[in-house]
């Protein structure tokens, strides 16, 4: 009898055994179990707004019969439910036609000792979980710091603590359990009144409590951002130089990561599909994907198939060096998998040598973009069009806040015309310095 109190490893083992018993000889299976918890508080106007406390877990099973494959997941851990899950998944796999991507990492391909190798990554804060008072004090500190800036109030203020354990077990012997924690303070601020309100937000995600900056710093930062936007207006349309602040430049790297996915490349749905070894970014630009950064938000010794990850320069001196390859996409392309079955890990654009101020000083007319709205970018064609706000640059100086404009171009040209500043900060799993791009189209009035 599997009880609600059984450990993840026990449940994974039980489910794997049930599946292999149900399936024909030679079948393979993979079980993934996620256990997570969350404590979170919200405050506003000096009063508590919300308190959430949760513990949830779910288990998923994938069965492989030759090249036939099916998956199922459940949040019911009773013995009867696990048996039924195994039975139905096997039936589904039998009914599903063979598929060339159905594969499970074999011994020799997957990483052994994942738990040992994950230790130096230090993804889990072993200290006591924060209690409600600690989270509330953090949230009040955020709000008070924001309100200290004249004319600024908060729209929402939240602090949360998350913890999770992921366990993976396969019929081929892959066996991994990784634990992680995160502390997340965030707030949204409003400056001004009525129709001239401007907004901003700030947040941090830290694996360890001791890495959190002072709440006052985050609160003040969010307040100053909202306040600096007061008096924003659109600008007339035209071709301009755009600077993407390091708060928005990681978005461009995210699109790059989507475009070098091995699967998209093999299927021909990426605008970079024929660009391996070619100049895709401006000369001098290096993009590093590093899964080994201690406490990194994307750090992992292996991908979810167990294929080991290692540090890769995806782009060197502007030239494309690697696709992001899973076991399946590597096979399609006739290459070796590189542990990127789940995408990039910690993707960083290395800083340039020019300061951000010097980049701005060199712009006759342009816009420093600090926020983007909307999601329109087409990875098949590279076409890019987004709503934007920020600051007008005239004759090398920031002259006024700008909003209600769009910026458009093609990612292929944008990457090739990019100059990074030297202000890289490694705080999120995708990080880039402020970058300057020549010749984009601004639409405004």
């Amino acid at each position, binding site marked *: 009898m599997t009880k609600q109190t059984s450990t993840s490893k026990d449940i994974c083992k039980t489910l794997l055994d049930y599946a292999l018993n149900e399936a024909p000889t030679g079948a393979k299976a993979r079980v993934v179990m996620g256990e997570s918890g969350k404590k979170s508080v919200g405050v506003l106007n000096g009063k508590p707004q919300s308190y*959430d406390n949760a513990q949830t877990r779910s288990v998923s099973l994938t069965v492989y019969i030759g090249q036939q494959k099916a*998956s199922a997941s459940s949040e019911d851990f009773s013995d009867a439910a696990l048996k039924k899950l195994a039975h139905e998944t096997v039936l589904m796999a039998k009914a599903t036609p063979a598929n060339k991507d159905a594969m499970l990492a074999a011994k020799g391909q997957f990483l052994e000792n994942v738990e040992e190798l994950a230790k130096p990554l230090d993804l889990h804060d072993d200290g006591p979980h924060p209690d409600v008072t600690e989270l509330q004090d953090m949230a009040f500190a955020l709000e008070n710091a924001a309100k200290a800036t004249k004319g600024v109030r908060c729209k929402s203020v939240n602090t949360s603590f998350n913890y999770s354990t992921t366990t993976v077990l396969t019929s081929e012997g892959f066996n991994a359990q990784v634990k992680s924690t995160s502390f997340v303070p965030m707030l949204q601020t409003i400056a001004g009144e009525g129709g001239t309100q401007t907004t901003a937000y700030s947040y941090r995600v830290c694996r360890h409590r001791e890495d959190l900056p002072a709440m006052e710093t985050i609160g003040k930062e969010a307040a100053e951002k909202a306040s600096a936007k007061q008096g924003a207006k659109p600008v007339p349309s035209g071709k301009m130089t755009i600077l993407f602040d390091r708060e928005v430049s990681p978005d461009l790297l995210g699109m790059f990561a989507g475009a070098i996915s091995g699967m998209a490349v093999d299927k021909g749905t990426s605008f970079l599909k024929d660009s391996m070894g070619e100049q895709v970014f401006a000369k001098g630009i290096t993009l590093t994907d590093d899964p080994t950064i201690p406490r990194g938000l994307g750090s992992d010794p292996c991908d979810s198939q167990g294929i080991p990850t290692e540090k890769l320069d995806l782009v060197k001196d502007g030239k494309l060096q690697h696709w992001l390859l899973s076991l399946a996409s590597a096979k399609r392309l006739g290459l070796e998998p590189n542990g990127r079955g789940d995408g990039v890990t910690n993707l960083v654009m290395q800083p340039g040598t020019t300061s951000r101020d010097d980049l701005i000083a060199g712009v006759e007319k342009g816009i420093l973009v600090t926020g983007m709205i909307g999601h329109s970018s087409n990875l098949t064609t590279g076409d890019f069009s987004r709503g934007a706000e920020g600051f007008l640059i005239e004759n090398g100086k920031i002259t006024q806040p700008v909003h209600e404009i769009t910026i458009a171009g093609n990612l292929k040209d944008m990457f090739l015309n990019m100059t990074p500043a030297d202000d890289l900060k490694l705080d999120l799993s995708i990080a880039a310095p402020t970058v300057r791009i020549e010749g984009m189209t601004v*639409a405004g009035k």
Partner: protein
Amino acid sequence: MSNPLEQKIGLDAQALIPIVGKATKGADDGELFVENVLSESVILDDGEIKSTSFNNSMGFGLRRVVDEFQAYVYSNDLTKGAIEKAAKELSAAAPGNGTLAMPPVGTITPVYPEVSPLSADYDLPKRIKLAQEIDAYIRGYDNRVRQVQVVISANVQDVLIVRPDGHVATDRRPMVLLVVSVTMDDGTRRETGRANYSRRDGYKGIFDGWKAVADRALKQVDVLMQSVPCPAGEMPVILGAGGSGVIFHEAIGHGLEGDSIRTGSAFSGMMGKQVAAKGVTIVDDGTIEGSRGSLNIDDEGTPTENTTLIEDGKLVGYMNDRLNARLHNMKPTGNGRRQSYRHRPLVRMRNTYMLNGTENPADIIKDTKRAIYAVDYSGGQVDTAAGKFVFQATEAYLVEDGEIKAPVKGATLIGSCLDALMNIDRIGNDMRLEYAGGTCGKNGQSAPVNDGMPTVRMTGGIIVGGTAHD
């Protein structure tokens, strides 16, 4: 124990009332929300069945509301012991001395069948065969087709809501979804087009009507293959019937959600004022038969209704959940929705649309010198406090001298919530809802919604984000 959720817990809803009572003693509101979701999908990609899956998610969330403070404990341990433990934790977390708000009132008119689409009538082999048939149809239609992706999915959500005052509500909510995506390549350029179909119903609509969805995806990608760069700058925009309705969802809807009004929306304090041109009436309606955004009751147990937001251009209503209704001293409108038991209710839209005007849509185009005519979209976003919205047109055309001319590449359109709708000068009589509706994201929660509108012309206030600048 007739309800499947009562069976899971092993207790009648009646037996849960005292536990909820303990959790909400001295509170102003609160409830137990129990949920079970069964979902299944078939994904075809690159000519093969890439994935077949089945998921079962279940759990409860117990909420205690004191004034504006909400304490929430959730878990997927569906046992009496776990619910009792949550009740204990809640009463300690949020001390209070309030009076419990009145239970939901109103009548429920069922707007979808009380069945699970996951029935044996459309078993896995049938759904796999359909996906393959759609793939073959699209590839056979045009030799420029390089990739086809088909997603056929369905889910059924059972909810049980138990209040401390003895009010018990249940709902069974079916949903089906078909997504078809087509990539074409003619040797010089490559584009992708998409079309969806979704309803609160069984699979029958998908099995009977997939060809129209495939044809829409094919048409969209064919148009994109011929598209020229889109103009950049402020210019008149004609919004096509149906698909462009997302503009009201973003420009007006989110800013009129009660929580947003309370914490700072561009529309705060504008009740009774003219916020759109005369003739513009916009509603948020939870009661449209089978529509993706429809609900019999919201996730607090309030029966849904048709809520008028803008009447003849004047702001006349907000959307409210129970908490925001109480704080605004208004009536809950049945807009309290949650993504799952893992989430507290939020004020969310349902089916948001603009009512018909009187004009023939062809006349609107005939009378326009130069504009962008936006027919289909891929999404939108809004900053409610700053009052700025965007929406992304994926199928759009240039209109010149009263005629629809070349299709233009997809572009983002941006505008200001407070003045965009003041610039509407022509309203067609061809209102329809979107074919599929979409999924709306807010504060990390997603919710199925639908939008709609007649053909409308806006003379200004919208900036078109193309690359062609003259």
